[in-house]
């Protein structure tokens, strides 16, 4: 049971990362590798501030802001210096590795003693449940875990709703149009370059927020924690699209959150069944490759059958 709840919580925390990837990958049609660096940046900024005793809400917000800056830098390199978006992301990701080490001062910052959002959530849960365990639908669960699950669910829901609302504002629709048809939105007087910079800042603030929360949940920030995270986000987005379709933005957002949780659950089950954790990134990459290639392949198979 603890394993299941743990998987759900991590899935929900990483759904913020998946939402960030949704913005860069689906709205702006960019594969933004800054993600790998900005999740660690969010985690390390939050961790360092928490160790110094800063208020956890403030530390988490600072982490998200750091991600926004990283995304903006990628956007500026891409739009102002006309460097390919993939390469811009790679440059910033590489630079962020050093930045993160400087922020943390070493490669790993543990949060054992620090008061974090997670520890606040756990103690609130125990206070509400009036004990170490609580009965949920017949299951006995640690009340700390239950509280964290509710808290992360709330976080993911709020983030999804905020993103949905934003993309229905004047600025948000102009950003969607930037990804859809830049020529059109430029002719309607919107600054395409600025929209891309803002969009990548928004995407990476979600990614860094996810990193800040993840560090607090797992109790440490680590320089290596970002490796392969953009692929993880892509997998979540793709699973989400399979679950809810892409007909409306709201459904896509809900799907992405569900996709992240489902993917984490599948991974937890596979690990439980004896999957070598070393193979995890390989399998994730293979999965995303298959999900990107299969639809086109099936389509061709179908037309060939028609032709025959």
């Amino acid at each position: 049971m603890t394993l299941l709840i743990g998987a759900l919580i991590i899935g929900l925390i990483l759904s913020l990362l998946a939402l960030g990837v949704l913005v860069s990958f689906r709205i702006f049609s960019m594969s933004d590798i800054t993600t790998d660096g900005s999740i660690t940046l969010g985690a390390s900024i939050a961790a360092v501030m928490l160790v110094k005793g800063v208020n956890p809400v403030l530390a988490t917000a600072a982490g998200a802001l750091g991600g926004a800056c990283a995304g903006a830098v990628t956007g500026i390199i891409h739009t102002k210096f006309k460097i390919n978006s993939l390469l811009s992301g790679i440059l910033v990701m590489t630079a962020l590795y050093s930045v993160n080490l400087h922020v943390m001062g070493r490669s790993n910052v543990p949060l054992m003693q620090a008061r974090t959002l997670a520890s606040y959530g756990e103690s609130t849960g125990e206070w509400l449940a009036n004990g170490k365990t609580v009965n949920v639908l017949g299951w006995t669960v640690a009340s700390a875990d239950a509280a964290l699950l509710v808290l992360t669910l709330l976080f993911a829901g709020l983030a999804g709703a905020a993103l949905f609302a934003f993309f229905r504002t004047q600025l948000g629709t102009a950003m969607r149009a930037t990804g859809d048809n830049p020529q059109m939105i430029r002719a309607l007087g919107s600054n395409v370059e600025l929209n891309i910079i803002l969009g990548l800042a928004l995407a990476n603030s979600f990614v860094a927020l996810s990193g800040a929360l993840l560090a607090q949940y797992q109790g440490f920030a680590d320089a290596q924690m970002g490796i392969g995270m953009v692929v993880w986000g892509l997998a979540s987005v793709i699973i989400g699209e399979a679950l809810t379709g892409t007909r409306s933005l709201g459904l896509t957002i809900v799907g992405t959150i569900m996709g992240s949780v489902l993917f984490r659950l599948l991974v937890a089950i596979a690990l439980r069944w004896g999957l070598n954790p070393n193979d995890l990134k390989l399998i994730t990459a293979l999965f995303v490759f298959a999900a990107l290639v299969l639809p086109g392949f099936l389509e061709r198979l179908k037309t060939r059958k028609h032709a025959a």
Partner: protein
Amino acid sequence: MLSIKAIRKTFNPDTVNEVRALQGVDLTIEPGSFVIVLGMNGSGKSTLLNAVAGSFYVDEGTINLAGHHVTKWPEHKRAKLIGRVFQNPFSGTAPTMSIAENFALASKRGQARGLGWALSPQVMRPLRDRIASLKMGLEDRLDNAIGSLSGGQRQALTLLMATWIKPELLLLDEHTAALDPKSADQVITLSDEVIQRDQLTTLMVTHSMQQAVSLGDRIIMMHRGRVLHDIRGAEKKRLRPEDLLDRFDEVRRREQLDESAAAMLNDLYI
């Protein structure tokens, strides 16, 4: 209204692909004037429109529009003054977004975009009626993605979007060239209606002699990056398609003469 002075533009300068697209164009257009731009392929008509719209900066010369020196303005800033319809029906609309959302974007042309709802009542209220006036039955499909519509429908909507806020200048770049004859007719009729109703200052590029004689009050004929003929007033009213074709032939003949004369001089003196 629009005043263009001695603008020049060379693409890929000092390479084998050098194209002198505009070689000193002077043009003044009065408010409310509807100007047709004619010319053969490569004569610089579309380049002229793009220079005015700000798709690139001109190498020399100045452009003044509605009392602003816009020569150094970026494209998105000039959009405050200019409405545009492109040749490609896919260029003027955002395909995965709904009809209503596309119009919400157009209703903010050249204005600051904030965090207010895009589909506000101020946008939605007049939208249905204006779209119903197209008589295409699109008023019941406002939530449909615009990419699901035909080229003619999209071009009609783009025209409506470009003129939703009255532009100081309307630029139509062969906006019916990619449509089937029936849709092209519809879009041309609609363009003329909107231009007459709102007294829009308009620059329209076309390849159709028929459109050139039946529409507008002035014809500019471009050749090799310059304005060759400027026909207006009574002369424009009397003009028939054959007259225009004659002028095209004249250009072609002169071009041949030039080339053969050059060849002759070459043989004689070099």
